[in-house]
């Protein structure tokens, strides 16, 4: 795998790679990409893509409100909060 491609992929995943890590990973990731290219050789003409192996039927729920018992805990899990707002550094 090209190093440049690896860096793009890493940045999409919000990962900072050191040069050393990039070296190691490029070989490993390259191997994975090769597996995919092998899979790509399979003839899938006229086959409907299988997105799910097990979920065959519709799974829906009625439009009913379930009061969230965990809301306070979830806000509490945030590193910083103000009132009920979760606070982060300004991203604008």
């Amino acid at each position, binding site marked *: 795998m090209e190093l440049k491609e690896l860096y793009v992929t890493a940045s999409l995943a919000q990962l900072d790679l050191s040069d050393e890590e990039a070296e190691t990973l490029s070989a490993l990731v390259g191997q994975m990409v090769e597996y995919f290219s092998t899979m790509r050789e399979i003839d899938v003409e006229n086959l409907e893509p299988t997105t799910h192996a097990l979920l065959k039927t519709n799974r829906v729920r009625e439009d009913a409100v379930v009061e969230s018992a965990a*809301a306070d805990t*979830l806000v509490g899990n945030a590193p910083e909060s103000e009132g009920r707002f*979760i606070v982060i550094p300004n991203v*604008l």
Partner: protein
Amino acid sequence: MYQAFVGLEIHVQLLTKSKVFCGCRAAFGDEPNTNVCPVCMGYPGVLPTLNRQAIVQAYLVARALDCELSESAVFERKNYFYPDLPKNYQISQLGSPVGRNGRVDLDLGGSRRRVPIREVHLEEDAGKMIHAGDVSLLDYNRAGTPLLEIVTEPVLERGEEAELFLQYFRRMVRYLGVCDGNMEEGSLRCDANVSVNRPGKGLGSKVEIKNMNSSRFVKKALAFEIARQSGLLDRGAPVAQETRLWNENRDLTEAMRSKEEADDYRYFPEPDLPPFKPDAAFLLDVEKGLVELPSARRERLVAEYGLGPDQVDFIIDEKSRADFFERTVALGADPLAAASWLGSDVKRLLNREGVELAESPLTPERLAGLLVLLASGRIHGKIAKQVLEVLFAEGKDPETIIRERAWEQLIDAGAIAKLVDEAIDANEKAAAQIRAGDEKPVGFLVGEIMKATSGRAEPQLVRSVLKERLAKSR
């Protein structure tokens, strides 16, 4: 001259009670971060489940836009990092959306324009951010509420056309009851893409415009943008492919900071949600929701009741108003009178009281009652207006109001004759003049009788009885 190509991307917040993939309340204005749970906050190990009402509404809109309905609607993850997105991906649709290849035949005032609808897809909304100084405040109550995206082909040519399309669309979703259509509050949002080129040369460089939170701003922003791009082409300057924001205070579009590389959302099928395959029972529910749409209703009301163009536009603008109108007519009111009262006196009172028709004391039964009283001559026009005032103030039926106030018009011949005789006795001189053939005092005597009855006597009847009486005794 140049040709402009405008496409719209519209987002509507669907009117469901709960979020699209979890049971959290889908409400606005609640305390921040109260309607959140591990599912919509993206905790590991949770399982999203599709809200049936949300998918019904999604298919309903696709159906109303004449789309081909998907036999298998697939949900996919759209991956990107932004703090308003707690999961770091948005559940959306890409390859197999709810609907495709629809159309709207837009009435451009005289001519028609077919606007092809590229697709309709269901996704989840993001949270809200408030930027305050050094920090940003996050509220995830909106994260995971159902959002429907509608994309048109770029066939609109002017800001006015986009505005008309948006008005049409807003009215449609309100008729279907799937969205309140409030652009200021963001329950209906519209972005546009604009490109300008020499005629016959196809699309030019595409510019995206965001931040237009009213249909009027859409019109103004597009007019500005078309002129801006035309100006660049005039000077032989290139049009940059970028995203611009409408600045409503300065009446212009401004370039957003442009990204160096193209977006890469790495979509893949959402492993936790099976594709949705509508069955017969589901499609029946969709059909049930398909009400008569505004344009069809407009045509029918004109044909059936002979309403004029302005009248019918006013009546059909709101489904509840059109329903009210037709119910009133069904109860015996004259259609033109009903439309005219709704568009004038009723409208004025609603504005003055600051209430909606549906919440006001006026019902189709009451309006029909009033208009029938008026048409049958039991009350006259001025009294009818007063009855309406009292109806709004006291919430009573017109019959009750005219009985309590003795406002019913006097049309009983005997009673009128008695009033006429009294007036003749009290005004000997005028009566004598009339007997002598001078008609001048007739008006005076009629006026006296009207005064004595506080305007309730039927003036034509008074006049003819009076003339008869004074002619006879000659």
